[in-house]
């Protein structure tokens, strides 16, 4: 082993240096808590999606006539095909669970703040590409929800002024989603977007390791170093965090395995019932809704009573997240030492996001009936409720700027060194 390492290092000294820089000599704060598992878990899911995706692509047929049959071929005729596909479909949903928690962590501990704005921006780009990737993957099985989801989401682009309708036809390649749409989505889903995603992940990590990781206390560990230049509150990523993340991976895989083997459709949330019906361009499913991870954004679209404004609000809801590093002018990073206003605002924001998701997933009509009785005016109540939520969603960003820009925030003193407590 030693001889080989020497042989290798003589020929590729750069690789050893890269390994050192990012693993054994990358010093991360020693006080990471549970919210810091989701970065490595996201990488794990990405690897899972790539490996299972490569195998699915070996058996899938990207044509309108063959796609649905080929998915059933994978599920029934290909040896272990069901396992590979359930790993991929479960992975898709788990990807978003993990990413949403990862983003929420960033908001909690101010990981988007100077000097980590670039890390946040690249992360947001990853999120954007991931949404495109997930949407196109969702279209591929060519079930009835795939078809109508594709049609509705592509038609969103018709809200673009002047050439909107041309744009829609250009994306579809026909006048309703069909073979050309499926072919290009397949190419983008399995080749182009994964490449972009991988590149962005490398940049995300590169940018992070340049400035160093934030932590639950929001203090910069590089301020206090020992004579060798190692941060006093830092520990080597490898072995300490690789081993810690391994435990997180174990727990995460247990949850994934329970889903894959015992409830792969998660009651119609990870795999929708209406997608068991082949695409039918004449029959719209009874309840048309996007898959759960898009539902908060879909609710924003649906609650605005104007097509143009709705699409604009949808776009704005994502753009606002990009702008967070510049909207938040506060000097303190971690929620532990921030003003009460930020704590309350972030909690409300998370709840609003979740409730918008429930509206988008069409769960609210049932709730309204059970609260207000069977004769309730579902649409009016839902719209009222939903529009309040939309306003609250955007209010978070406005509040964040006003609260910090005009100095309303009363922060607590930030410690010099990291703290660790249970």
């Amino acid at each position: 082993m030693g001889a080989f390492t020497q042989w290798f290092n003589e020929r590729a000294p750069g690789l050893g240096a890269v390994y050192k820089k990012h693993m054994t000599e990358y010093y991360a704060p020693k006080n990471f808590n549970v919210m810091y598992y989701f970065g490595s878990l996201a990488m794990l899911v990405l690897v899972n999606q790539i490996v299972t995706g490569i195998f699915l692509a070996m058996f899938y047929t990207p044509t309108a006539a063959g796609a649905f049959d080929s998915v059933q071929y994978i599920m029934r005729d290909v040896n272990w095909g069901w396992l590979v596909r359930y790993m991929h479909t479960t992975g898709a949903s788990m990807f978003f669970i993990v990413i949403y928690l990862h983003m929420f962590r960033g908001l909690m501990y101010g990981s988007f703040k100077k000097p980590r704005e670039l890390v946040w921006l690249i992360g947001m780009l990853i999120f954007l590409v991931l949404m495109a990737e997930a949407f196109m993957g969702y279209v591929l099985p060519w079930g009835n929800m795939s078809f109508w989801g594709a049609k509705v989401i592509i038609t969103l682009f018709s809200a673009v002024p002047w050439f909107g309708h041309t744009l829609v036809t250009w994306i579809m390649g026909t006048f309703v989603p069909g073979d050309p749409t499926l072919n290009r989505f397949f190419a983008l889903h399995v080749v182009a977007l994964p490449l972009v995603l991988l590149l962005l992940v490398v940049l995300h990590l590169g940018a992070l390791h340049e400035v160093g990781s934030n932590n639950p206390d929001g203090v910069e560990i590089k301020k206090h170093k020992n004579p060798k230049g190692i941060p006093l509150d830092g520990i080597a990523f490898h072995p300490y965090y690789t081993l810690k993340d391994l435990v997180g991976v174990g727990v995460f895989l247990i949850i994934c395995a329970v889903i894959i083997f015992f409830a792969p459709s998660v009651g119609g949330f990870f795999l929708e019932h209406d997608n068991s019906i082949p695409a039918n361009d004449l029959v719209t499913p009874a309840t048309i809704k996007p898959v759960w991870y898009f539902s908060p954004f879909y609710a924003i679209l649906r609650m605005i009573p104007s097509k143009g404004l709705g699409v604009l609000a949808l776009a704005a809801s994502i753009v606002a997240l990009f702008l967070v590093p510049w909207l938040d002018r506060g000097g303190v990073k971690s929620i532990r030492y921030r003003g009460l206003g930020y704590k309350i605002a972030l909690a409300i924001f998370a709840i609003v996001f979740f409730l918008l998701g429930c509206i988008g997933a069409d769960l609210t009509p049932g709730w309204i009936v059970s609260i207000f009785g069977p004769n309730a005016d579902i649409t009016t109540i839902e719209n009222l409720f939903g529009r309040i939520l939309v306003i609250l969603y955007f209010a978070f960003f406005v509040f964040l700027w006003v609260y910090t820009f005009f100095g309303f925030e009363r922060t607590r003193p930030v410690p010099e060194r990291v703290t660790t407590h249970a």
Partner: protein
Amino acid sequence: MADDSINKGRRRFLTASTAVIGGAGLIITAIPFVETWLPSARAQAAGSPITVDISKIEKGQMVRYGWRKQPIFVINRTPEQLQWLPKQDPRLRDPHSNEPQQPSYCKNGHRSIKPEWMVLIGICTHLGCVPDYKKKVGPEPFDPDWKGGFYCPCHHSRYDMAARVYDGVPAPLNMVVPPYHFVDDTHIQIGVDPKGAA
């Protein structure tokens, strides 16, 4: 950070055992992925046995069938063709069919169940071309002493009337005889062994 209280032996043991358990898990996980490449249920259904009617095949005639997308040759050999077989032995690479290129019930001088009926997968054992059936006895450009058999146009491999390969040609083995049995006197089922034969 390294202090004297570190129990290196314990660390090594735990690292090794976790690596072994994790590695075993990874290998077991790889098995399903590898097995996706095995023939699917559809491929297996397409490879199910075929039954052919041989009543119309005349003496000396060869008919081709498809089984698992491979050419199956069925030849109704003449007594004269059969009579040449033992005389070719000295010129052959494996005259007694010692290599397992045929089911055990076809390991005999004529490589078949009934002497006159030759059933084989018509694929040259060199690089997979389909040989020609050359039944005419007499000098040929590729063999001045041709007694009838199969000739592969790709790299000039030659086989006798029992698809046994001649010595001195690129093909290493006799052509394969598939499992088959006689359903009745005029029907052969290819892909299934006779009852009682393994």
